[in-house]
């Protein structure tokens, strides 16, 4: 099973932390720091697998990580998971994020942590892989977001307006509005210099 999923940047600042086993808050922070230490020491062209640190359970558990630009995605798993499979899972996760956020970058993860949590919850549940089909996940997320928006009431009006404009199909609006044979005389306004 997957014990924890951590995302942090090159300086060790956590961008997402999800634990599937009960750890106290202090321990959680320590685990994040320890994992960052272990992972940041790695070279560029070594394998993506590491023995787990002492806090997370020692040599029974592995850290499987991928480094994308400024972010480390680390999955801490025990020996029952396939290492290469988890590598693929990280890739699917990142691709799903990409689809949901449109060219995801670190800022998206920073400002929309709750959304990332929701996406992750559709993929991994209780430490086990739930769904790996990207389209299904994205469909679900869209449906849930819609549900939220419909509840938002007045506060959601600007957001609804924005999405209305976005989904408006501009090319279809007729360019010439023909309202019959009305001649409109344009007054001769002084030109402003």
């Amino acid at each position: 099973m997957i014990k924890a999923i951590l995302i942090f940047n090159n300086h060790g600042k956590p961008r997402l932390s999800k634990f599937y086993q009960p750890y106290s808050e202090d321990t959680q922070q320590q685990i994040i720091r320890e994992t960052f230490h272990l992972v940041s020491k790695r070279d560029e062209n070594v394998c993506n697998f590491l023995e787990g640190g002492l806090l997370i359970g020692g040599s029974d558990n592995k850290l499987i990580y991928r480094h994308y630009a400024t972010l480390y995605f680390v999955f801490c798993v025990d020996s029952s998971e396939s290492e290469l499979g988890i590598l693929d899972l990280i890739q699917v996760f990142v691709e799903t994020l990409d689809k949901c956020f449109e060219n995801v970058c670190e800022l998206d993860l920073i400002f929309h942590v709750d959304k990332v949590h929701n996406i992750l919850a559709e993929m991994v549940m209780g430490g086990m892989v739930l769904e790996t089909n990207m389209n299904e996940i994205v469909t679900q997320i869209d449906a849930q977001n819609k549900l939220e928006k419909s509840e938002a009431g007045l506060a959601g009006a600007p957001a609804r307006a924005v999405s209305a404009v976005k989904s408006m199909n501009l090319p279809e609006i007729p360019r010439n509005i023909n309202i019959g044979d009305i001649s409109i005389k344009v007054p001769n306004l002084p030109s402003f210099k």
Partner: protein
Amino acid sequence: MVVSSLKLQDLIEEIRGAKTQAQEREVIQKECAHIRASFRDGDPLHRHRQLAKLLYVHMLGYPAHFGQMECLKLIASPRFTDKRVGYLGAMLLLDERQDAHLLITNSIKNDLSQGIQAVQGLALCTLSTVGSAEMCRDLATEVEKLLLQPGSYVRKKAVLTAVHMIRKVPELSNIFLPPCAQLLHERHHGILLGTVTLITELCERSPAALKHFRKVVPQLVQILQTLVTTGYSVEHSISGVSDPFLQVQILRLLRILGRNHEESSEVMNDLLAQVATNTDTSRNAGNAVLFETVLTIMDIRSAAGLRVLAVNILGRFLLNNDKNIRYVALTSLLRMVQSDHSAVQRHRPTVVECLREPDASLSRRALELSLALVNSSNVRAMTQELQSFLESCLPDLRADCASGILLAAERFAPTKRWHIDTILRVLTTAGTHVRDDAVANLTQLIGGAQELHAYSVRRLYSALAEDISQQPLVQVAAWCIGEYGDLLLEGGCEETEPLQVEEEKVLALLEKVLQSHMSLPATRGYALTALMKLSTRLRGDNNRIRQVVSIYGSCVDVELQQRAVEYNTLFRKYDHMRAAILEKMPLVERGGTPDEEAKESKEAQLSEAALVPTEPQASKLLDLLDLLDGTFEAAQPPPALEPSPGGTLVHLLDLPCASPAPASIPDLRVFEREGLQLNLSFVRPPGTPALLLITVTAVNTSGADVTHFVCQAAVPKSFHLQLQAPSGDTVPAQGGLPVTQLLRILNPNKAPLRLKLRLTYNHFGQSVQEIFEVNNLPMETWQ
């Protein structure tokens, strides 16, 4: 004035704007104060926003426990927005150890039964992450109902929640076992994935479930076949492989089902061969599937040709350029090395190559595998490789490598001299990383190899002269020089270069060790004792030694001071005894002698399920007893394992003190059958805390004699056991003279005592054999 609450994005902006850690803390504390006030006021509209901010702050490491009750309120709210944040908060802030977590059980129950699948999904997700045992018990039936509902989204989540529930409360397996067969017929990959995980969990927990699910093997094979042979399906494919996650899970389940089961293995054979040969290995996904296939082939009762194919695939992967593939290949080979040793041996050269990798993970795996591959035929070559690895490897691998080499040397050393050389080399290279008992082992080894005394002491002297910083090496060298100093000065030894050593130099070296700040107190002890011993071995006068000894009589370290004072006394008042006391030591006994190994094998035999002993086995054990009787007749070796003679010296010079009466331990009746009773009585002699004496008494109250009575005993490996000769082998009837036997047990580690007894005898014309473990051993026997 009501301060308008920040949105989450704004808070994040502010936090990022903080230039220092202190500033960030300030911003967050201010905001937390607002949030707390808002919670107190109970503003329902913005509660979710406040909690979202709190969760963000929690991720950064700031305390957020005051948000726990708010999570509950949000979960109970009817709005989806609230529930979403509320459940997320529950997953992040609550866990089983807080009492508050039980309060969400009711909300989850309500949410599970109402129809909106997004809400049900949230509830299931939270349940599977933080569900405690009580919650799982309460909600099991709800989840079971959801398993067979029409919507696939909820079902796949319900299945995985069931897995979590079974992990927490194994008794729930009964509820979740029946639906599995039906769920396997689903087409939806998410449900299939969950179901296979569920079946795997059930099978791992109970052998009955395992038997039950063997009948779905054909169905699993079918599903896997479809996955493998269908063409490119965009939906679930990852780099051209059709849903590799599901394939891997199915392969893993097949492995569990086919293990030790001919029939199931046969059904899988063809499919496994197909997958092994047809999977595209250019991308990671294909390799993942291939690895699982290889592991499955090796674990089940597969055809021989298939196994060869599997090992070859692994060999090929070892040569792959991709480091990840090599890592996984090494891991897989490590798993197989016990069961298919010869197959893995073929890849030994490649494994040794991987030792030289700069990648720490790879070299660690290669080290473990190399150590597992050492056997008597390749021990010289492998040790050579491992030694050069030891010299260049990273510090955290050194300890493992050093102890691995020492262990391998102990098991497979071709000659004693090679063994001593190897240990010496390890001590010189990585002396600070070896385990503590390496010193004891080496001294015992050298002590036992009489022909190599001269050689050893020379080698050690040269090594010591070069470097006195590696403590284990210094300790062994000091001991050796002390014991065999005369051999060192004699000069001629064929096996090493002729080395002209002067007395003064030897003494100077030992003094240097004594004075060096790098020496540990134990090392100093060794050096001082060695100096003392040299006073009888060397021909010159002992003024220099006497000087050193008297100086250390006022040393700050109590241990050294005690020794120095005693040695001083030896020089003055007891000079006539000095030569006798400082004679060469007799061989110190420790584990690794033939007795111990035979005892270990006997214990292994006895600890298997009680099998009927074959005749040769019984006679071997009887021979063992004779051997033990023999050693008992011989001189009793000293019980202390410390090789330093200073220890025994202290005992000699100690004034006898009044020994406290041994605390009496109650007797224990351990066996009774048809009138034959076996009692154990315990004595802990006060002088030796690790020693336990057990007297086994066999009394016969029945009408017939018990003849050919033999009692054997076995204890765990860390103990030393000696069985003395029994008083007889016939227990006369009607309560006649009982047969007694004394057991001596040494327990230096104060580990809990476990004792297994094996009785064989003839009674009422039948031969009886009983093997049992003695329970209820009182704590005083081993504490």
